């Protein structure tokens, strides 16, 4: 009755313990095939096991490596069964990530059995110009953040008629909070490769680079296996030429997501962006015309070609076509990866797909550290390149972090700026120095020493940094600050005028207190306090306390909490 058992062993799954489950199952199940698959996007339910039966698949969530869990699964028990909510079926439109978690990522046969490389065959029967035209009709725009029309970029490369041409896949997913590209590469590496081969045919490229984050070892491994497999089948030989395919590992620099910086990094230099023009499509890697697209852009290509541009363009809004993957994380019930049609509203994603509780959400951060915070009152905004731009956010690569009411918005902005200011390459003064100045002011505010002048400074300096920076990093670094100032000014004002952090997050603006009414004097807090700030009669000395929260976490009666206070006392 059970035909096959699939265990999700993507990075998320492994982190949740899928490895142990796999080993345990392998040593205890003898007569059923166990397959490792990628990620189906339901990360909140990991480790996840799918049991293929004659009557369809049954999913089990939060599986453990023990006999009870194993037995439950073999008996197809009711426990831990994962049923997909109706809303996910209704609101999602899974096209690009359809095979993710459904097939063995490193099996070319399985990929082929599911229409794999059919789009490449179809594309090879078309002229390169026709392929570019289809992509144009499909309205595909770059999924990496900028949203540049893909067909236009391709045509820039295609117009160079002779010589070496380079295709680069940007797999340097550096946005903290984004993991769609990782999932695609881990789960369906052949889809990414197929998209790149179609692009090579359309543009006449002779060399392919995949610039992947070194922090994604599994993605790199699977890509390398996929490349070897497609080379064995000679799929990389097309139009009378053999295409070189090389995976290059990045070395940890967020700015390398910028085109020209990535090219410098590929050439073995510091990843510092340069002025454009010349654009990479005229002079890129070692001077050759080069084109850079993001992983998800390439992964969308086979879908577009297979169904045709016209069909593809039926989904989405006027300016943004097709589907988009988002990585949901933060304060919500169902974190993971979703694929939705462009034009779905933020609210639908956060509340319906993400399962966040209505009223519990303060804002969403879209587009990572370069994006903006969008407050709840704008949750009816459709997700497309243009609408988000109007709100001061960007689509970005697709990281979507839900920020709950209990988080401090000033601290969140400080966090993003801390990140971007450290990642600035140092080339442009406004980015190198200006962002540090912004960060200093934000630290001043979160430590309770800010004034309204600091807010004015932020609003003055932010746009100057945007104007005075060369690349996307500097141009977008002040976004989180400016967007939060725009939408959550009252919280900033509370910090500077009332020295109050309503979220009780800013250390200097809170005290820690023990509720003596509930306290049972068990001593756990006194024992755990690293700085001996709690006296024998259970009073916290807030001049000593570092607000590390150790006592709050350990208290069995939950009678210790943060309260408004701190500096203003």
């Amino acid at each position: 009755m059970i035909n096959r058992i699939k265990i999700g062993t993507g990075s998320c799954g492994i982190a949740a313990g899928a490895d142990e489950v796999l080993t345990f199952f392998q040593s205890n199940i003898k007569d059923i095939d166990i397959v490792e698959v990628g990620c189906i996007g339901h990360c909140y339910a990991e480790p996840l096991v799918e049991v293929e039966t004659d009557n369809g698949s049954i999913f089990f969530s939060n599986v453990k490596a023990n006999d009870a869990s194993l037995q439950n699964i073999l008996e197809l028990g009711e426990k831990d069964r994962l049923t997909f909510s109706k809303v996910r079926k209704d609101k999602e439109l899974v096209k690009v990530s359809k095979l993710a978690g459904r097939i063995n990522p490193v099996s070319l046969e399985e990929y082929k059995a599911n229409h794999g490389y059919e789009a490449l065959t179809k594309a090879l029967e078309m002229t390169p110009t026709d392929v570019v035209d289809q992509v144009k009709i499909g309205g595909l725009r770059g999924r990496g953040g900028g949203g540049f029309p893909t067909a236009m970029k391709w045509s820039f490369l295609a117009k160079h008629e002779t010589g070496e041409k380079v295709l680069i896949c940007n797999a340097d997913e550096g946005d903290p909070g984004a993991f769609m590209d990782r999932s695609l590469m881990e789960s369906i590496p052949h889809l990414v490769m197929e998209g790149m081969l179609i692009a090579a045919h359309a543009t006449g490229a002779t060399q392919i680079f995949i610039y992947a984050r070194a922090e994604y070892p599994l993605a790199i491994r699977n890509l390398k296996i996929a490349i070897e497999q497609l080379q064995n089948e000679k799929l990389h030989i097309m139009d009378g030429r053999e295409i070189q395919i090389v995976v290059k590992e990045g070395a940890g620099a967020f700015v390398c997501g910028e085109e020209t910086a990535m090219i410098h990094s590929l050439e073995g230099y510091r990843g510092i962006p340069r002025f454009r023009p010349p654009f990479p499509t005229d002079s890129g890697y070692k001077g050759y015309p080069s084109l850079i697209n993001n992983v998800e852009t390439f992964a969308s290509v086979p879908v577009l070609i297979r169904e045709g541009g016209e069909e593809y363009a039926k989904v989405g809004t006027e300016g943004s076509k097709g589907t988009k993957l988002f990585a949901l994380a933060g304060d919500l019930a169902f974190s993971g990866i979703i694929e939705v049609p462009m034009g779905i509203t933020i609210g639908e994603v956060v509340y319906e797909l993400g399962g966040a509780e209505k009223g519990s959400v303060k804002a969403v951060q879209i587009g990572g550290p370069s994006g903006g915070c969008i407050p709840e009152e704008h949750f009816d905004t459709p997700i497309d390149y243009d609408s988000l731009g109007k709100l001061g956010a960007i689509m970005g690569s697709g990281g979507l972090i839900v920020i709950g009411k209990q988080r401090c918005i000033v601290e969140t902005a400080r966090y993003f700026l801390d990140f971007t200011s450290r990642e600035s390459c140092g080339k442009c003064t406004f980015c190198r120095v200006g962002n540090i100045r912004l960060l200093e002011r934000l630290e001043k505010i979160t430590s309770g020493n800010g004034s309204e002048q600091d807010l004015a400074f932020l609003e003055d300096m932010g746009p100057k940094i945007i104007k005075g920076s060369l690349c996307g990093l500097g141009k977008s670094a002040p976004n989180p600050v400016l967007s939060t100032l725009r939408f959550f000014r009252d919280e900033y004002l509370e910090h500077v005028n009332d020295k109050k952090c309503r979220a009780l997050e800013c250390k200097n603006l809170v005290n820690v207190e023990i509720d003596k009414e509930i306290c049972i004097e068990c001593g756990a807090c006194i024992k755990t306090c690293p700085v001996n700030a709690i006296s024998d009669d259970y009073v916290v000395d807030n001049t000593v306390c570092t607000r590390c929260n150790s006592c709050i976490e350990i208290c069995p009666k939950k009678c210790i909490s943060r309260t408004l206070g701190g500096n203003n006392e």
Partner: protein
Amino acid sequence: MPQNLLTIFDKDRSNLIKAIQHVQKEEGFISNDQIINLADYFEIPLVDVEGVITFYTQFKRTKPGKFIVHVCDGTACHIKGSERIANWISEILGIADGETDAKGLFSLETVACLGCCSLAPVIAVNGKVYGNLDRKQLRKILHTYQQEAKK
């Protein structure tokens, strides 16, 4: 000094980063001697090699501990309290961010994102990821490694 670490690479400059990664994988960090080797091998100035090494966060100039504890401070982890996690680890291991203890057993590093956002907050010890952490679990995990380090 094992110059032969580099001979597998074509002398083209575009292989420099790959070569540095290889050296770090073999030796754990990039020593002064290896910088000289790299510069000689690729026939570029020492400062070019050093410049590339300091630019990328992956590269280390000092020997890391036996166990490298990475605290994820990605967005999701951050809002789920990664700062507290980092402070607790500092307190338990007695080292600050970026430090290695005197015995060379533990190194603590804050990293941008491990890509396991749905399990936030997470840490990784020598690449093994632990998610949904609270203080109690954290102590338990670190304790296990401390016991192992004693062996």
